[in-house]
C-alpha cells in the first residue's frame, strides 16, 4: 500500500483521486455531478475511481432520492482524511527535499 521509497500512498497515485479527496476535505458532502463538473471526467471514469476509494474505506457513499431524482453523495471518512493528510505531508516533504 505504501510506496516504500517515498511514503506516498498507492491509492493516491492517481491525481484524479487526489482531486476527489481535495473536494471532500473542504466540503461535508459532494454529489456525483459536482465532482464530475469539478474534475471534468466521464461518468464511468469518475465512478471507477470513486469505487476504488470506497473499497479502501476512504470515502462513504450515500444514495438518496430527492423527490424522484436519485442523488448520490460522497463524504470522506475519518480514516480517509487521515490518509489524505499523510499524503499531503509526504508530498510536501518530497518538494522540500528536491
Amino acid at each position, binding site marked *: 500500500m505504501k510506496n516504500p521509497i517515498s511514503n506516498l500512498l498507492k491509492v493516491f497515485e492517481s*491525481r484524479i483521486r487526489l482531486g476527489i479527496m481535495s473536494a471532500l476535505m473542504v*466540503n461535508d458532502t459532494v454529489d456525483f455531478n459536482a465532482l464530475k463538473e469539478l474534475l471534468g471526467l466521464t461518468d464511468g471514469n469518475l465512478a471507477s475511481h470513486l469505487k476504488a476509494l470506497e473499497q479502501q474505506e476512504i470515502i462513504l457513499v450515500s444514495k438518496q432520492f430527492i423527490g424522484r431524482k436519485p442523488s448520490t453523495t460522497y463524504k470522506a471518512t475519518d480514516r480517509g*482524511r487521515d490518509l489524505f493528510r499523510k499524503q499531503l505531508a509526504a508530498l510536501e516533504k518530497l518538494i522540500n527535499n528536491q
Partner: protein
Amino acid sequence: MKTNSTNPKEDLQTIREIMERSSKYLSLSGLSGIFAGACALIGAAIAWFYILDPGHVPYDEYMQIPLDWTTSGIRFYLALDAILVSGFAALGAIYFSQRKARKAGQQFWTNLTQRLLVHLMIPLVSGGIFTLILVFRNNLELVASVMLIFYGLSLVNAGKFTFSEIHYLGLTEIVLGILAGVFINHGLLFWTLGFGLMHIVYGTVMYYRHER
C-alpha cells in the same frame, strides 16, 4: 487531467485549486471553540466567585427587588462579564480560523465568510435586543434561556456555510436553552454548560476531525 502523478509540485497545486474551486464551506478552526469555551468558563467562575459572592448575595433570578445599588451593580457586572467573554471568544474565533486558513494557503475573508456572518448575526442581534428588553422589564429569570436559544438558532442558521458540527452545536444550545427555561434559577449553570462545556466538546471534535 493527467492520471498518474509523479510530480508532487503539480499534485499540491491541483489539490489547492480544487479545494478553492469546490469550497462552499468555510473552514473554521476547532481551536476557536475550545478557546471560546475556556473564556466562558473563566467568565462563569468570575461571576460565581466574585460578582455573585455566594454566601453574601443570594443567587436569585427572580430579583424583583426594587432597584437598589446592589442588584443593579450586580446586573451591570454580570452584563459586563458576558460582553467581555463574548468579545474575547469572538476575537479568538477569528484569530484561530484565520490562522488555519493561512496555513492551508486559503483566504479567510471571502464572500462566503460574509454570508456566514450575516446569517449568524440576524438571530444573534435579535436575541441580544430581546435579552435587553427582558432585562429592562425585570424578567431576569428567562435571560439565560433566551440567550442560549437565540445563540443556538444563530449557529444553526450559519451552520449551512460551514462544518456540520456547528449545526449540531446550535441544536444542543437550543435544547439547553429550553431546559434553562424549565429549570428556572439555574441560569448560570446552563450558561456554563452551553457556552463553556459544549464549546470545548464540539471544538475538540472539530479539531480532531479536521485539523490534527
